[in-house]
């Protein structure tokens, strides 16, 4: 069954057309990530799904039901906000139980669900505390707990990790992945961070300026981007773009090469001058210029390379991507 279906969804705020003809299906149990640069409409799309904003046109189905006119609390969704949005005057337990009380669930069910969520998220000791007495990571877990207790058909996460520091972000990312396995629930997760998208998603939806650019599994998108934007957005360091003319005279296409598909070679056809070297231990990132174009090469292992050095780079067989002037991918 499908957890969510969007058909031709459009959203405008006055004159500003924010979402443009979005079509999407999310299967039951799927982890879908919306990714795109800031301001591309990810949060707006999530709010439309949640029912916090009305669509300007198009249809939203959750679990097969048409929900355009259903209020947020009746859609069977739960949402985790970037800013946590905990109720400041309620303790952790009451933050988690408020929605269940509004649904008039029995006390046994409420207690049991809170206990279950608290155990999953290691919040047992904090149930009587107030949000102001918790650390950022704990607040985020409470916000997730508040979503879990409702047993929603669909979880919505809006950049849940962006207020956490790097170490905590890594841990929480793993916890969310684990949670997805345990709950076997459908989840939609919004982020502007491509590495979060790559690591968490079953399916990635790349958005730009309110358009869906491409939908697919992380590896599909990585190996087979439909355009220059998707190719450049996924992967770190990002794909290198060069005028194809530097290889064959007169070619006006754009050549795209991933950093890991470049290697040092005596007979390589890209003469490079090293600008900067990043030694990461396991990898070495070499930032070099090839005929005045900046190129990043990612070499496996450790290499004794210094700035100012010159050598030739070659592209691995079959790893070149070509794009036309508008950015669309051309078959090689």
């Amino acid at each position, binding site marked *: 069954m499908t957890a969510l279906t969007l058909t031709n969804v459009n959203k405008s705020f006055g004159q500003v057309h924010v979402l443009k003809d979005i079509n999407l299906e999310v299967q039951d149990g799927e982890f879908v990530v919306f990714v795109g640069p800031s301001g591309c409409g990810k949060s707006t799309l999530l*709010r439309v799904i*949640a029912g*916090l904003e009305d669509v300007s046109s198009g249809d939203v189905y959750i679990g097969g039901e048409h929900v355009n006119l259903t*209020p*947020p*609390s*009746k859609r069977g*969704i*739960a*949402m985790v*906000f*970037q*800013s*946590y*949005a*905990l*109720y*400041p*005057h309620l303790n952790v337990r009451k933050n988690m139980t*408020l*929605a269940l009380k*509004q*649904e008039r669930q029995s006390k046994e069910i409420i207690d049991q669900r809170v206990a279950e969520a608290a155990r999953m998220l290691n919040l047992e000791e904090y149930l009587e505390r*107030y*949000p*102001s*007495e*918790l650390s*950022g990571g704990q*607040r985020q877990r409470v916000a997730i707990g*508040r979503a879990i207790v409702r047993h929603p058909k669909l979880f919505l996460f809006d950049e849940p990790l962006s*207020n956490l520091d790097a170490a905590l972000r890594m841990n929480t990312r793993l916890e969310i992945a684990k949670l997805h396995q345990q709950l076997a629930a459908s989840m939609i997760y919004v982020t502007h961070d491509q590495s979060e998208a790559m690591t968490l998603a079953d399916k990635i939806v790349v958005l730009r300026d309110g358009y869906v650019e491409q939908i697919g599994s992380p590896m599909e998108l990585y190996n087979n981007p439909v355009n220059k934007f998707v190719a450049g957005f996924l992967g770190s360091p990002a794909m290198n773009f060069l005028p194809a003319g530097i290889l064959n005279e007169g070619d006006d296409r754009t050549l795209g090469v991933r950093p890991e598909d470049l290697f040092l070679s005596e007979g390589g056809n890209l003469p490079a001058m090293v600008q900067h070297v990043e030694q990461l231990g396991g990898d070495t990132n070499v930032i070099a210029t090839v005929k005045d174009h900046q190129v990043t090469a990612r070499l496996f292992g450790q290499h004794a390379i210094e700035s100012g050095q010159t050598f030739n780079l070659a592209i691995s067989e079959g790893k070149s991507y070509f794009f036309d002037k508008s950015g669309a991918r051309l078959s090689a």
Partner: protein
Amino acid sequence: MNKARSNPLNKVAMHGALILYTLIALFPVFVILINSFKNRKAIFREPLAVPNADTFSMIGYETVMKQGDFFLYFQNSMIVTVVSLTLILLFGAMAAFALSEYRFRGNLIMGLYLALGIMIPIRIGTVAILEMMVATGLVNTLTALILVYTAQGLPLAVFILSEFMRQVSDDLKNAGRIDGLSEYTIFFRLVLPLVRPAMATVAVFNMIPIWNDLWFPLILAPAEETKTLTLGSQVFIGQFVTDWNAVLSALSMAILPVLILYVIFSRQLIRGITSGAVK
């Protein structure tokens, strides 16, 4: 912490300045209080002396208690002030919430219209107000005063509160909506507690002018049974003779409740918002 603030010398200077200001501000109140307990001669001979065995007298308070229904005046002032403040805060906050939270046609125009009253003193409309009150039979009722003061206080209340409500996190309100809270619950349980300092500010700004007002009680409700404290105290101030003992005693008693209300509201001002909801 700021370096200048942690320096002990600066701290002493800062506290010294604040204490000095407090003394200057409280001095008139102090003079009123001590003189209200002195006999007439002592008030004029040594206005700054504290009452002693010779000069102590309760004559002012006795006059006030005897003449006029002082407790009724007091009660009237209290009712008018408290009810007006309640209405200003309630309706002001509701209008502010609607203006800041919902997108509807004419939102901006409505906001400007409601704020217009800040620039136009309500006393300009006194004649029209009086005519309206006569037509509706509200002359010489406390309702008349309450309506006028509510109207007078609303523009600034809407203006200040909507500014503060815009700053309340959208995520928090949206979380409430997803959890199934009604718009009223979101307003009363989530938003109002977070703008409490602003509410206290509005309350303090409105309370003192209402309590002290002489104009509208004199025009709209001069009857004996609806007199407010300020109006009631005027009987002691005559064109030729003024009973200073009585005036000072009445003033002393009038200050007290405002002071208490002020302390209540200003505690709210200082307490600040419960942090930790957002971020």
